[in-house]
């Protein structure tokens, strides 16, 4: 080992300078190896969890999952700790949203729990939700009939503009809040998760209970969101629907850039 290590520089010195591509190749090989190993490792853990969850689906199973994965922050009796709020009475909708979008288990304490790959199977999420729902009454997972995006898109769009657009952007592209918090983009979010977010008010989102927005209103909002996402924009490319900043930046860089380039070309001497 030691010998080869000392010999290699001499060899390279013999053959002249090392190719500049050698460093790049070495880094690429190293990264590929590390990434591959990590991917293989995470797949094995995921498959292990799947096999473990095959028989899940009962409250008892949910309790076990909760104690193993959630209790360190939320407490063994869901009473909450300094690291996490009490979950008594949050309802199954809350669990299905938080765990079903990958926000929970939390990856790190911070201003906001980001969306990440879901850590549990659907059965495990359901078991957890059922278990948490037994500890107190709370909003439950909405009925399928409300999630078909077949309501009144016009009414939904008006309600969205009044109640949601100031944070989530009028096109549902998301927006910034205070101190690192943000309203996430609503593009590609499952209807069930949109509904659950409205009814439970996850993190800093306010609650929109059924007295404020009736289940039909929520269905209409989901309809409007799906309508805008499935129909192409009339005015051309939406540039992420981020509003005047994105559009202004685009025209400043590309519009003015083109004008500057044309000016330089016009005034340059012909060769």
């Amino acid at each position, binding site marked *: 080992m030691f010998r080869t290590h000392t010999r290699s520089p001499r060899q390279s010195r013999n053959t002249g300078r090392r190719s500049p591509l050698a460093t790049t190749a070495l880094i690429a090989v190293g990264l590929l190896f590390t990434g591959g190993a990590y991917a293989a490792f995470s797949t094995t853990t995921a498959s292990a969890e799947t096999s473990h969850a095959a028989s899940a689906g009962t409250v008892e199973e949910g309790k076990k999952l909760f104690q193993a994965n959630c209790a360190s922050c939320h407490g063994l009796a869901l009473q909450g700790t300094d690291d996490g709020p009490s979950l008594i009475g949050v309802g199954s909708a809350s669990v299905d949203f938080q765990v079903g979008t990958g926000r929970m288990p939390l990856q790190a304490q911070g201003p906001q729990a980001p969306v990440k790959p879901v850590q549990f199977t659907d059965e495990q999420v359901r078991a957890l939700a059922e278990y948490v729902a037994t500890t107190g009454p709370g909003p439950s997972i909405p009925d399928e009939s409300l999630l078909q995006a077949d309501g009144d898109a016009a009414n939904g769009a*008006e309600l969205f503009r*009044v*109640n949601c657009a*100031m*944070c989530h952007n009028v096109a549902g592209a998301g*927006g910034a*809040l*205070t*101190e690192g*918090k943000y*309203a996430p983009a609503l593009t590609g979010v499952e209807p069930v998760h949109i509904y659950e977010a409205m009814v439970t*008010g996850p*993190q*800093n*989102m*306010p*609650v*929109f*209970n059924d*007295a*404020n927005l009736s289940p039909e209103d929520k269905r209409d909002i989901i309809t409007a969101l799906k309508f805008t996402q499935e*129909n*192409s*924009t*009339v*005015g*051309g490319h939406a540039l992420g629907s981020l509003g005047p900043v994105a559009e202004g930046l685009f025209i400043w860089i590309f519009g003015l850039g083109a004008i500057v380039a044309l000016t330089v*070309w*016009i005034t340059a*001497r*012909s*060769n």
Partner: protein
Amino acid sequence: MAQDGNSGTELAAADSSDHGHGTELAVGTAVVATDAVPNPGFPPHRPRVTDLDPKKEKRAERTVYTLFYLSAAGSIWAIAAYMMFPIEPENLNSVRANNLFIGLGLALALLALGIGAVHWGKALMHDQEGIDMRHPTRGSESTRDRAVEVFAEANEESGFGRRSLIRNSLIGALIAFPLPAVVLFRGLAPEGPEANPVRLLEHTMWKKGDRLARDPSGVPIKAVDVTIGSVFHVIPEELANLGHSEGYLEEKAKAIVLLMRLKPEDLVEDEDKKDWSYDGIVAYSKVCTHVGCPVALYEQQTHHLLCPCHQSQFDVTNHCAVIFGPAARPLPQLPIAVDDEGYLVAQSDFLEPVGPSFWERH
């Protein structure tokens, strides 16, 4: 003294050397410093490839007329696109196709025309440098004297200076002429004691006993509907009955309110404002006190209200005091109560003007 003498000779030397460039100094004027940078003149003329190589010239010519033909094709394409991609009612995508293809045709027509013209000028047109001297703008002495004479004659013939009554009445008439514009433009402002703009800005349509209703449906809100963490976007119940021709938007712009329920123990309330909330339910004007954007980004855990326009932040637990940003005042609070049927009602109008500052705001 010696130094003075030295500098004198140096300057004289500079002057004499300057003489070669043709600058003449009048006797007795200050010494003019010579220009440090002599006029370099033109760079040597460099012929273009199109001047040297007839093949290149032919090619440039081809490029130019091809561009002009392309421009014509673009114009014709724009007409064809208008017919081929009509805007169909109920089909938003047809608008997109219509815009896109007409726009592409017009862009091609204009860009090819412009680029062709510039390329023609740069590559083919005459390329010798030349100087156009500026013409002196000052008239000759006799022209100038004649101009003064003309004025004097006109004054003499019209009697402008002599007939002072006519002159002064003319000046008076010219001063009076713009006055109607002032009065006419004043007439655009709200008129009458009811429409005093200061009063309009100071008051909203909220009054004692008005029910708080949902925006935009106008369905009144019961206190029990407002669960903890909820936020309601609120208008006065009467506003929903108002038509757009009856000032719906004007009234709504002032009267919009955000209703939130916090845990009562989270609220820090002044002694004299304790009865403005109901069991943790508070109502605040949604109009930012900075420049009037709707402040509605409520964070239900931190109880911060964020204005999306300029990032002013208000602390809902502490009478919406400003905790960040350019707003100067807290959001005005709407005092609320509950009526016999359990609906939320206003105790009165806002007790201070809502929205941004104005001149007469006290």
